[in-house]
């Protein structure tokens, strides 16, 4: 349709207020086609927590047919108010990344290969090695003859997401073994 300024004004004068942009000659289809469908449309919103640091930003995980389709910050959570840093913003990639570990991996001493192992074997190995290391390296007294009961050859890597109660249990277990080196993943 051809529209001059004059005919446009006439149209308005005649009470045609709802003249759409389409009638003026803009092709609205193109922009609409570009938008396509929203990838989270109809997906279920599941609240989750970013696993990276102790700020514990809350995220909304969008799930469709049992599959994660997108993640973003939860605007209703007072700590992050919908915001996320670069690590939190990349949560979806952490889920889809082919580097993600899903089973225990084992690299033997001096080997350059990782081998997949089951949990049973892995947990037994950990228990065995903790016991052996402790039996071998436990320091009962220091140079001055004072009792220290210290084990310096084991390091505990925890998580910033452990709750107060979990921290207490972990701490007691490790102190019980004499372990003095402990930290969590947000600082490495």
């Amino acid at each position, binding site marked *: 349709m051809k529209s001059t300024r004059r005919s446009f004004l006439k149209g308005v004068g005649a009470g045609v207020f709802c003249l759409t*942009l389409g009638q003026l000659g*803009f*092709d*609205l289809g*193109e*922009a609409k*086609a*570009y*938008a*396509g*469908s*929203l*990838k989270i*449309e109809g997906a279920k919103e599941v609240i989750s927590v970013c696993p990276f640091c102790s700020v514990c930003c809350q995220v909304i995980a969008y799930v469709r047919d049992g599959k994660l389709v*997108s*993640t*973003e*910050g939860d*605007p209703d959570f007072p700590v*992050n108010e*919908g*915001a*996320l*840093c*670069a*690590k*939190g*913003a*990349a*949560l*979806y*990639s952490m889920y889809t990344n082919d580097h993600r570990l899903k089973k225990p991996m084992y690299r033997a001493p001096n080997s350059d290969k990782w081998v997949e192992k089951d949990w049973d074997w892995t947990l037994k190995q950990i228990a065995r090695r903790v016991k052996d290391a402790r039996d071998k390296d436990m320091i009962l007294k220091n140079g001055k003859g004072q009792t220290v009961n210290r084990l310096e050859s084991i390091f505990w890597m925890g998580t910033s997401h452990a709750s107060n109660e979990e921290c207490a249990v972990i701490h007691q277990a490790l102190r019980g073994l004499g372990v003095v080196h402990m930290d969590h993943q947000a600082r490495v």
Partner: protein
Amino acid sequence: MPKTFLIDTTRCTACRGCQLACKEWHDLPANETKQTGSHQNPPDLNPNNLKIVRFREHLDKDGVVVWNFFPDQCRHCLEPPCKGQADTSVEGAMIQDEKTGAVLATEKTAQLSEEDAQSVIEACPYNIPRLDKKTKRLTKCDMCFDRVSAGMQPICVKTCPTGTMAFGEREDMLNMARNRLETVLKEFPKAFLADYKDVNVIYLLAEEKEHYYEYAAS
């Protein structure tokens, strides 16, 4: 009135949440990059990064390092020169949405000859569009047009944890920009709103554009 972004660089800490969120929303893969001595990574916009945070540092008159961050993206110009240029060869390759002001590179950009695509890239005063050699399409920020059409904020704005980015009606954003500039001027007397009359992505810069990026303002 179109939609407008306000990007207050004085609040940016270069966490790059926006950069990553953009990649995630648009399902863009990682780039293989090398350590070049800068935290700016990848070094430039590319078909997999429609938004990057640029880093630049200089010494002030007292010999103190000033480190500036510039979250670079398409400005969604009120009168986009890229669209004007593209229209001369393939109508509909670059379009501008009337309601939001979003400037969009459609799949028709693949019909542009390599030369014509280059002309479109060169028409941009801000050095934004990039040619995807695989799909032959021009790529750039699309204002998260799907999200904005559904009444949501662009993902970069939603993600920003420092309050650097805001998005809304142009009039509101202009008011916010003026208010913020007034405050920032007290600390940074050279602060200004880059090309705010011409663009829908308004940057508040604390000093000359050269201390951010050659194309930070036209």
